[in-house]
């Protein structure tokens, strides 16, 4: 049954549902109505299931977590963010968050699907049959998904902050959650992301310490830099040194840095093959 469509076709369908959620929310907002939480949630859930199928087919084919190229990393990051939204997003009681999540899901999946070069080389058994390395990679990318959701929440915080400072509270702004709730959610998400990335690095370091020759320095530097930035933001927030708007901007910057670091992570696997594929792309 699942073989009716190829993995990429399943993922296109998933992107379609995320885009449908985005469209539904946009139409509601243009009309000045509250976005329909249920319909957007259903669209995201449908997209999530289809993406799960697509990534599952890939994982089966590659013999592990589908993180073999940039396309898969972007897909897995989107899937991670949406997993977290589906698990904890409902408690936010904010249909606006659903709208922004569908935005993120659509952006990451459509971007990765629309650049064939990212998926030109499909590497298999990239973890060498080592489950710890696979867990390390999966946790690291999952933490990036958490940072994605954190970036969305930070965006909502900045909008709410702007509305309160500029005294524009009607229309679209009236659908935003309270600024204190958003701040609490930001802190929890950042804490979760840091914890997951710390675990990922801990699992990875056990493996690297046994065989330091396998360590790719640019990948290690990029990943540790993201972790250090996230941990620093969390520490400064706890000390009351990075607050409110500045904290939200820092969280947005953190997600941008995490996305940029994915290039180093991906190139570290098979730099030669990746470069060849990019050269071969039209």
């Amino acid at each position, binding site marked *: 049954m699942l073989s009716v469509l190829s993995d990429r076709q399943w993922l296109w369908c998933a992107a379609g549902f995320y885009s449908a959620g985005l469209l539904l929310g946009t139409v509601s907002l243009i009309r000045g109505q509250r976005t329909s939480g249920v319909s957007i949630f259903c669209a995201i859930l449908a997209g999530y299931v289809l993406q799960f199928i697509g990534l599952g087919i890939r994982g089966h084919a590659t013999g592990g977590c589908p993180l073999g190229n940039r396309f898969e990393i972007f897909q897995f990051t989107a899937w991670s963010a949406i997993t977290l939204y589906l698990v904890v997003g409902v408690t936010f009681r904010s249909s606006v968050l659903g709208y922004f999540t569908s935005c993120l899901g659509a952006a990451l999946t459509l971007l990765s699907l629309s650049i064939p070069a990212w998926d030109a080389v499909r590497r298999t058994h990239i973890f060498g049959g080592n489950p710890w390395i696979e867990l390390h990679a999966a946790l690291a990318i999952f933490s990036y998904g958490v940072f994605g959701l954190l970036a969305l929440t930070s965006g909502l915080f900045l909008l709410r902050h702007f509305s309160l400072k500029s005294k524009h*509270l009607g229309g679209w702004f009236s659908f935003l959650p309270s600024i204190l709730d958003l701040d609490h959610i930001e802190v929890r998400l950042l804490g979760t992301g840091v914890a997951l990335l710390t675990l990922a690095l801990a699992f990875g370091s056990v493996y690297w310490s046994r065989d330091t020759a396998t360590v790719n320095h640019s990948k290690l530097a990029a990943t540790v830099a993201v972790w250090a930035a996230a941990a620093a933001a969390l520490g400064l927030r706890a000390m009351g040194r990075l607050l409110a708007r500045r904290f939200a901007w820092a969280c947005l910057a953190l997600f941008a840095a995490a996305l940029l670091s994915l290039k180093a992570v991906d190139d570290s696997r098979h730099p030669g093959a990746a470069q060849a594929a990019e050269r071969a792309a039209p």
Partner: protein
Amino acid sequence: MSAPTLFVVGATHHNAPLEVRERLVLESEAAIRGDLASVPGLRELAVLSTCNRVEFYGVASDASAADLVQAAFCARQKFDPAEFQRIRISLTGRDAALHLFEVASGLDSQLVGENEIFGQVKEAYAAAAASGTAGAVLNRVFQKAFQAAKHVRTHTGIASGRVSVANVAVDLAANIFGSLAGARVLVLGTGEIGEATARAFRSRGAADLAVAGRRPERAAEIAAGLGAATLPFDGFDSRLADFDVVVCSTAAPAAVLSAAAIGRAMRRRPARPLLVIDLALPRDVEPSAADLQNVFLYNLDDLALIAEANRAAREGEIERCRAMLAHRADGVWSHVQPYLASGAIPQADPAGRSPGAAGQAAAP
């Protein structure tokens, strides 16, 4: 004798100014029900009496029943019938049903979208049901009116946004703190508007209130009424960090709360926002406080502008609501009309001497 029909007769704020409405206030609904018991052909009756309207909803098999209700009411109130004729509202059939839908939805209210009228219509219906004068037709029409009102309030912006300064202030706090249960509110000054705002905070769940005023006895009086604590006015700014919301309404000729004092308080609570609502004229708070991080300062003009924008937004929704309600009124009327035309409506006693008799009829 003609087929029974639904009617409404009465007077509302649209045509009756306050001094006229004062003379129309019903002292005793029971008394008017007694007067109306003798109106021939009157099968069902519900009386809606509020500060903005007095309306009689009825079902009658006699076309003159509405006029007789009006005459009985004027006689009871000692009100000139000719004057009432000029200001009255009188509708029948589907239009009467639509009017009730609009009233219950707050569409016909002086303050469009207000919620209080919904409860008042419910009370009017409950009183009619309890006295046995709400029969199958009024039961149906009122129930549908409640459903319609809930629908438009949920699916349109007719009830969104607050339109009084006190409630706008509370909404602002909710935009910052979410639930107000844990928000600590300091009321500075003993002015009327400050007290009204404090009451609004209390009614929306704020449990921790304190009042500080130059006149301690007045502050204590207000605090007692609110179930709040009192705070000495002198040196209140040293306690500022303990509060999330500060409502200022003193009559001081100059600012009583400086940006520096707020800045000092914020250094002790940097992660928690502070909402400062300045309702005083001249202003109580230095305007530069608005530039501080995590401080949100609103003055009387800001709140009035928000209230006005909310009011305009509600009024912009009126036509959409009206279309929704008209559709629903058509629906209920298509069910009620054949039932009325069949004439199978038992007599209810407007004086309430035979409770429940009307309600036993099969609903249309």
